[in-house]
């Protein structure tokens, strides 16, 4: 659905849109672990190329804020949240790879609010695949990808998977 060049172009466009809308306000990118963190780093690099200043980048683990804890077979692994700067009064752009039901973003917003009071929270995603269960919409989208609920969207990134690619996978037959 997206190859390496397409993925890179999408991130470049998102970076330009973020810069344009921020208009010089204090800006930080917070990636949702794991792939959102990597995407946030890449967007920050691109912003550094456009503006003279690289925005601060943090990483958020939303495991402790999930709404489905206790209803899963086993507890998901808790990873660290690393946001070594104050959120107070700044513009925070949450970055994630795939936007689906919106529940992860709900959890991420709760987590951010516990860490401080940003002036604005915006949302950047590489892929919006639809099927929202909460009233959440992204501000910056790399690609809208209509999917069926049964399919899954795999975002592969060099740092994690050895290549940059987005593919839709059919559900595996049980």
């Amino acid at each position, binding site marked *: 659905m997206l190859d390496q060049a397409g993925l890179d172009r999408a991130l470049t466009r998102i970076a330009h849109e973020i810069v344009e809308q921020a208009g010089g306000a204090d800006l930080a990118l917070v990636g949702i672990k794991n792939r959102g963190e990597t995407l946030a780093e890449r967007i920050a690099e691109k912003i550094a190329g456009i503006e003279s200043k690289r925005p601060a980048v943090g990483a958020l*683990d939303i495991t*402790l*804020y999930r709404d489905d*804890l*206790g*209803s*899963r*077979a*086993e*507890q998901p*692994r*808790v*990873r*660290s*949240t*690393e946001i070594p700067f104050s959120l107070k009064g700044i513009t925070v752009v949450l970055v994630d790879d795939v936007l689906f039901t919106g529940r992860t973003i709900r959890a991420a917003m*709760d*987590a951010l609010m*516990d*860490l*401080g009071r940003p002036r604005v929270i915006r949302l950047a995603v590489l892929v919006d695949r639809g099927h929202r269960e909460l009233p959440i919409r992204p501000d910056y989208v790399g690609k809208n990808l209509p999917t069926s609920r049964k399919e899954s969207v795999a975002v592969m990134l060099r740092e994690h998977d050895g290549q940059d690619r987005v593919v839709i996978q059919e559900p595996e037959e049980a």
Partner: protein
Amino acid sequence: MAWKRKDLVSMQDTEAAEITEVLDTAESMKEIATREIKKVPTLRGKTIVNLFYEASTRTRTSFEIAGKWLSADVINFSGSGSSAEKGESFLDTAKNIEAMSPDVVVVRHKAPGGPALLAKHLKCSVINAGDGAHEHPTQALLDLLTIRQKKGHLEGLNVTIVGDITHSRVARSDIHAMRKMGMTVTVAGPPTLIPPACQDMGVKVSHRLEEAIAHADVIMMLRLQHERMTGGFIPSLREYSRVWGLTLDRLTHCRPDVLIMHPGPVNRGVELSPEVADSQYSVILDQVTNGVAVRMAVLYLLAGSRAA
């Protein structure tokens, strides 16, 4: 690997991969302590009962803070001033508490095996917070977390545990856990305080302090438990302190990067000289800080074990 157990009763029954899972989770939990608002909603609506039949400040407070930072409701129940004094049996008290639907019971009891008994009879999760001279698993876990943070790894490290091994549940849990993590453990103390079964646990035994600590990466000093010293195990406190007390002078023969640990409460001037307790080698307060993170990790992992 994922945590599947309902209870945490002993280190003897816990596998190395499970220990690593707790330590990794605890590592992530530490960040919460640095926040301005120290609370995450993870265990909202869960109830934790601290059922303590023996005195404790550190462990009980640590569990209470851990539970509260995860948004659970924590209720403290102590043996004294309760129905236990009116003759209610341990198991009856526990059954009554269970009837109020807690999710986790944290239990400290003087009888070895008390927590295991509860784990068998209660549907909720049970955590052993110390049972007689048997085990104190969360203490071993926080010790390992502290060592891993300071040394970067566990495997291959030399640990020397000094003092009253016989009466120490901390030593027993530490030995089991450290052996599983590939560490070499030496125990040192007067022969009256070293149980003969030590060799079966895969540890070396030494009866000379200088020899035991010379190559140690970690020295764990145990508290001399006066309250259990009624059987003539040592000639006198002063003599014990002179032979087995850790002083700055004795530390000069140790590795320069040695860590001094102690499960607390410290008898200053008995097993540890005040200068050593406050020295740069001492990580005693790091242990206490890590205790909260480890207990948050255990509470989190156990809360997921009964979902299916």
